[in-house]
């Protein structure tokens, strides 16, 4: 398994692509930082006792700030390093969960639609059409809006993260469904699948054991690209004030807070989280691009 990986064309291409390697390093650093935030971060931005209003609006260290705060503090005196690490943690949690839910939902529907065709396919694709008529951000906003209408206020506040994940997942499943369906459609007509059908294998087994492993390539690309999309979507929703509130800030929320300081001199409150978000998404997208090239050699 490992030997196969080290010798694969993909790994060979990877070692020849400085952009992909750099992106992988950045992505792994951010992911590691986010995962280990409770141990790495100097303070806990959720815990009111750990910060002091007196430390508010300190600039980063190289601009004459305080030695305790490498990237400065916000108006509440929260350490920017800690806020960003915890924010990235939330952003990644939401992004990953939403992407996984969307991929499981979309791939199941897409593979089944491509395999069975006929009426089931028609229904799934018409639903996908309707979904396409309502772009991702709209769907996510809408689902969040419905949750506000349906759930009592206190409950809605508690369920903000699950609602957000669901909203993003439901707006991204179509990508997976369409890709999985198109690939399944191609595989379905290949002889190895027909051989399995003739043998009398169970359709679910054919889909899971024969078709799915053969369409993983393009799906992996979509998973990467949609992880980036999910993180962007979460940031956008939080920026619009519909995602996460200021007391449990994601990267998007941090940027929204930073907007208030756009006109005053405290640039770090806005631009450092922004830079961090962009670096994260760029590196994920670079990896997605790289995977696309690996799985579609004709693009090389």
């Amino acid at each position: 398994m490992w030997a196969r990986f080290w010798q694969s064309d993909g790994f060979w291409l990877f070692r020849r692509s400085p952009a992909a390697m750099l992106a992988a390093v950045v992505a792994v650093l951010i992911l590691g930082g986010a995962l280990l935030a409770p141990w790495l971060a100097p303070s806990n931005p959720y815990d009111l006792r750990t910060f002091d209003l007196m430390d508010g609006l300190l600039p980063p260290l190289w601009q004459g700030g305080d030695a305790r705060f490498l990237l400065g503090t916000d108006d509440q005196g929260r350490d920017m390093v800690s806020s960003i690490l915890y924010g990235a943690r939330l952003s990644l949690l939401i992004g990953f969960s939403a992407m996984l839910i969307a991929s499981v939902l979309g791939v199941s529907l897409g593979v089944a639609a491509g395999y069975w065709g006929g009426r089931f396919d028609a229904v799934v694709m018409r639903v996908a059409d309707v979904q396409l008529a309502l772009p991702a951000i709209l769907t996510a906003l809408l689902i969040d809006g419905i949750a506000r209408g349906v759930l009592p206020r206190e409950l809605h506040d508690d369920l903000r993260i699950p609602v957000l994940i669901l909203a993003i997942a439901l707006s991204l499943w179509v990508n997976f469904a369409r890709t999985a369906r198109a690939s399944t459609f191609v595989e379905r007509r290949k002889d190895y699948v027909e051989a399995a059908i003739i043998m009398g294998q169970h359709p679910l087994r054919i889909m899971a054991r024969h078709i799915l492993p053969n369409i993983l390539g393009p799906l992996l690309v979509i998973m990467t690209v949609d992880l980036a999309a999910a993180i962007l979507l979460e940031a956008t929703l939080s920026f619009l004030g519909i995602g996460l509130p200021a007391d449990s800030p994601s990267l998007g929320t941090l940027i929204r807070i930073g907007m208030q300081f756009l006109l005053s001199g405290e640039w770090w409150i806005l631009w450092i989280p922004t830079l961090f978000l962009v670096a994260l998404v760029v590196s994920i997208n670079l990896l997605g691009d790289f995977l696309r090239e690996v799985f579609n050699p004709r693009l090389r």
Partner: protein
Amino acid sequence: MAYFILKRLIQSVFVMLAVAFLAFALFRFVGDPISQMTGVETTLADQERLREDLGLNDPFLVQFARFTGKMLVGDFGFSYRTRQPIGEMLLSRIPATLELGTVALLISLIVGIPAGVYTALRPRGAATQAILISTLVGVSIPTFVIGIFLIFLFGVKLGWLPTFGRGGTVQFGWWRSSLFTVDGWRALVLPALTLGVYQLTLTMRLVRAEMMEVMRTDFIRFATARGLPMRALHYRHALGNTMIPVITIIGLQFGGVIAFSIVTESVFQWPGMGLLFLESIRFVDIPVMGVYLVVIAFFFVLINLVVDLLYLAIDPRLRVKEAA
């Protein structure tokens, strides 16, 4: 051919019905419409009478049919928040969003298609690599960050352009346009750029991928082997065949432009439909949310019908019957 158009029309009607149903379900089941419309002082009996008057006790399908029928004649109901007719509210907002979206889409096409063609024809050039890297960064920067950056640079630092509102507008009937004054255009530049940059990167990458695919086909190799001039080869043969898939995506992109105008409008306080929708979500103004959905879907369906007609114009395989 007639069948092709007819089939698409039927599909469009289906999509519209589904969205209308969604809007209706929102209105009917998310929160109680009566308690939203009435105050605490209304008696239960009054509430019940209102319920009866509004037909909320009728069978479900009857209510849906009435809801759809009213929409068809332009009666969209009333906002919970402002108590105004939603039709009028939207009508005053639509021009702003359409102007913004159209200009953004034009930016994306006018820059994106040539850039895509260029990078496809010179896949290994230095300029291509630079363009590819910058578009990758382009798709990775959230729209709102682009907006903030443009505001910061051109509004705050340089002070060249206004950072909010529509600037000077001219009224034509119910259409309030900012396209006829210098001031209006100045106000339009930053939001349109913000919205256009993201779509531009998508357009460019798509055109590039499709064009590279076409350049690999047999008929391009055959045309090369016949020694056709490169110009004809690239622009008549390759680009023509590239446009078929590209047109589809542009149709889809229009939906994206309208949707992302929500963000742009929020950043630039642009008084369009998106801002209205955001406000309606914040105040759980369900009827406005529903109508917004229907209007967006309508634009989307309309654009896609136009796309289908363009197909017919471009692709003879859809127009002319195959010989046996």
